[in-house]
């Protein structure tokens, strides 16, 4: 049977490490994604992600399933331009912008100022859920 536990602090049995549940929740990623950003874009793996949209070269919209509370969430980014690294020279991005409570843009670039598709861009979202 499913059960709910209401508690303010979680401590290990030896009482040597404790964390407020609010810190645990605030520090957890509320959404993450690894995607294929070339050709027909696709989600490789994700959590709390509804869909991705290809807006053009190096320009993707990431849509979150359960909304964030505000648009002021933090997005960490990573991944790779070339998944096997064979041409992994200096690349710009990924950058995150146009944030709303349900979506944000992920943009990837080349080794100049030009936009470029990446094979495997990644992002994680931290902040408050609605």
């Amino acid at each position: 049977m499913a059960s709910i536990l209401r508690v303010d602090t979680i401590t290990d049995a030896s009482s040597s490490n404790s964390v407020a549940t609010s810190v645990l929740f605030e520090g957890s990623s509320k959404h993450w994604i690894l995607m294929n950003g070339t050709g027909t874009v696709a989600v490789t793996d994700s959590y709390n992600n509804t869909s991705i949209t290809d807006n053009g070269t190096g320009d993707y919209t990431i849509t979150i399933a359960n909304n964030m509370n505000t648009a002021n969430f933090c997005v960490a980014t990573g991944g790779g331009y070339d998944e096997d690294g064979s041409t992994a020279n200096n690349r710009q991005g990924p950058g995150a912008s146009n944030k709303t409570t349900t979506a944000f843009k992920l943009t990837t670039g080349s080794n100049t100022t030009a936009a470029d598709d990446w094979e495997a861009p990644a992002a994680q979202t931290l902040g408050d859920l609605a």
Partner: protein
Amino acid sequence: MASQLKVDTITGVTTAGSVAVTGEGNSTTTNLQQGLAKAWFACDDMAILDSLNSAGLTDNGTGDLTLTVTNAMNNDDYSTGMGAGGSATSDGSMRLVEGADATTARTTSAIRLRQGYKATNLTMYDDSLCSIQFFGDLA
């Protein structure tokens, strides 16, 4: 009244690897396990400063490093966050990118990275702070 739970392991009742927690806005829940970083590394000059679930760093050459985790991921589709900075170079525009050669793709337990600063192409460089986090499913 404030309450405190003393426990070493939290396990879901319906599904052992799934514990829902109520979000900050009190209207939705999020999955505790999915939201946790499964590994993270803070490195400087090809040495690990601090980490979680780390099995070590391999120095493959200037600006070329492999990070290995102790408890493997469930597959190689994990999401990574990464950043670099603190370079002493005049350029100061540090980058951390995945991949180093055509034969070293990521695995469930290791990822190979290039670290360097902006030039026409990436100029490989050791002495820089770098951070990387792994999000995804543990094996």
